[in-house]
């Protein structure tokens, strides 16, 4: 059994966190991102008993990985 990640979500989503949420690598092909987003979203859809907060995080993760919103990225 793997150890669970500690703590809550980061205050600002980075590409790294977005990748973790969707279960893909950071620089994966956009098609793969859409596929992963669909899969994770189905599992957490609010209409099927998922939570709105997680759904919004999943959507944000997709946007960050597709470059629609600027991810926090590197501090340097």
């Amino acid at each position: 059994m793997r150890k669970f990640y500690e703590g809550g979500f980061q205050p600002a989503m980075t590409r790294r966190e977005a990748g973790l949420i969707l279960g893909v690598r950071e620089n994966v092909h956009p098609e793969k991102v859409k596929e992963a987003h669909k899969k994770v979203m189905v599992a957490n859809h609010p209409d099927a008993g998922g939570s709105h907060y997680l759904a919004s995080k999943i959507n944000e993760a997709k946007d960050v990985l597709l470059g629609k919103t600027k991810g926090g990225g590197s501090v340097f």
Partner: protein
Amino acid sequence: MAGKLIANLIVMGSGIIGRAMLQAYRKALDNANKTGVAHETINNIRRASKTMTEQEARQILGVSEQSTWEEIAQRYDNLFERNATSGSFYLQSKVHRAKECLENVYQKNKQDGTPP
């Protein structure tokens, strides 16, 4: 003769630079304390590292202040299972931590004798 002179200069120069660096470092620490930047940084690190707030935990599980523990446990089981089969491990972790956080809150309430 010349070699000795150069060596002397180098030793003296590095001593002066070293002292200046030390003073700059002290001054920077001083400034950080005065303006509260240091405080903020430490708080950020603490917040980001280990803990989840009760508010965030409730948002993640999608429960309100009035929810009973049974409701929370049910939501948790559901979300955890779903993310185990077709979600991501990261989200599963968040769901787990949220339950952990609320578990603490509800246990404390029980000991105090106040209804959840």
